[in-house]
């Protein structure tokens, strides 16, 4: 039998006879839960065949029906992104109102509605993320500023000040990248990247970090 790990060095093996009689009861089926069947095993087509006219007239959250949200959330959970076609068909544009409505359901999903391409900090800033200063880093970034966009990064080390979002997070147990989480994510290599490879690569790194958040914490 495969020697699974160094945990077995003490003499325990996966087939440890001590557990023979109780194995299934102690470790077995009781934690196994049946997940809802996946309606679409492939990535994209979940919303491709829908008819927008069939959308029921349900209570709306700033432009989204509850059904929209649930379907969107289901798709997000399965595929990690929101298809453009879905957004177009459901007349979802990226307005503040819509985003804030969605925020009341899931802060995570905000990050999916906006394309974090070249100006992620502006995107975040537009929804109330305020970046406070760190003088030393600000100077360093200023020195590296080659195209003006880097101004957005000046206040990198970070206080999220949008009280409404924080309140929502607390009230609904939503997941929002906290100050410390962002710093933790950044401090690994962001500044090295910025100094060594320049702005665009640093942006790529930033997107990677946020992809993690939008994938529910799974690193890409």
């Amino acid at each position, binding site marked *: 039998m495969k020697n699974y790990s160094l945990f077995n060095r003490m003499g325990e093996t996966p087939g440890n006879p001590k557990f023979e009689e109780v194995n299934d009861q102690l470790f077995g089926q009781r934690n196994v839960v049946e997940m809802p069947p996946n309606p679409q095993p492939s990535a994209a087509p979940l919303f491709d065949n829908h008819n927008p006219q069939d959308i029921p007239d349900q209570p709306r959250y700033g432009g989204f029906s509850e059904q929209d949200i649930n379907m969107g959330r289901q798709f997000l959970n399965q595929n990690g992104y929101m298809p453009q076609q879905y957004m177009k068909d459901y007349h979802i544009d990226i307005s503040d109102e819509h985003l804030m409505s969605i925020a009341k359901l899931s802060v995570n999903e905000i990050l999916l509605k906006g394309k974090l391409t070249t100006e992620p900090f502006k995107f975040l800033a537009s929804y109330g993320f305020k970046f406070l200063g760190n003088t030393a880093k600000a100077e360093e970034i200023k020195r590296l500023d080659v195209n003006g966009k880097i101004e957005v990064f000046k206040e990198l080390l970070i206080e999220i000040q949008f009280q409404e979002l924080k309140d929502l997070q607390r009230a609904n147990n939503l997941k929002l990248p906290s100050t410390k989480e962002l710093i933790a994510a950044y401090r690994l290599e962001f500044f090295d990247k910025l100094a060594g490879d320049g702005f665009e690569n640093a942006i790529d790194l930033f997107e990677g970090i946020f992809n993690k958040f939008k994938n529910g*914490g799974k690193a890409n």
Partner: protein
Amino acid sequence: MGEKQINGENWGVCGKMNTGKTHITRELAAQIQARTNKPILVFDHANNPSYEDIVRVIDTDYLVKRKLKPGETYRISGEKDIDYFIMTATDYVRDTIVVLDDCGNYFTGNTTQIQMAFIMASKNNRNDVFYQFHNFNDISPKLCRAFQMLVIKEQAIGTIPDKVPNAPLVQILHDEVQAENDELDPMKIWSYRIYDIGMDYVYWEDPETKKLTGSPGREYFRE
């Protein structure tokens, strides 16, 4: 039918020094790993020699950068920023067996938000978490209430506090363990019970065959 998913559980492993907490934890973790092929991550903030044989020593930032490989065993030793580890593990560790050695030193007093997030995330993150500590009095009430499984060894303080789920029954199990240990070589006081709180099931080791037997609590405690 849909896919099957194995959720994680919180295990409390309680006992004073030299009662074999680490040994039983490693056995249990190995069993879970054998069934699930999950990686094992030992958080050993105090450099416990019992875990020195685990050669894959990583730091907390490793969890951010890399995914733990199935079937492997890792150790984080001597981390000073325990909150940072807890927070990072909450966000990045999935489908893993996590062993928190000597956590009575930091899951104490009132549970912080960071700690609570970690405790509550184990099920959804499919992490089996083993909290090792010396005495139920050391750890926070919220953590006590989050245990689905208890491994009860002899405590230095023999009274089980009310904050422990089903405290009177746990007290019975502890007293049995203590009585068994009184008959043993003082260097081998390794008796224990495993109590599945949710399923109300008690497991004990036959002293001769060394095999575990289980019984529903309603029958066990009736005797």
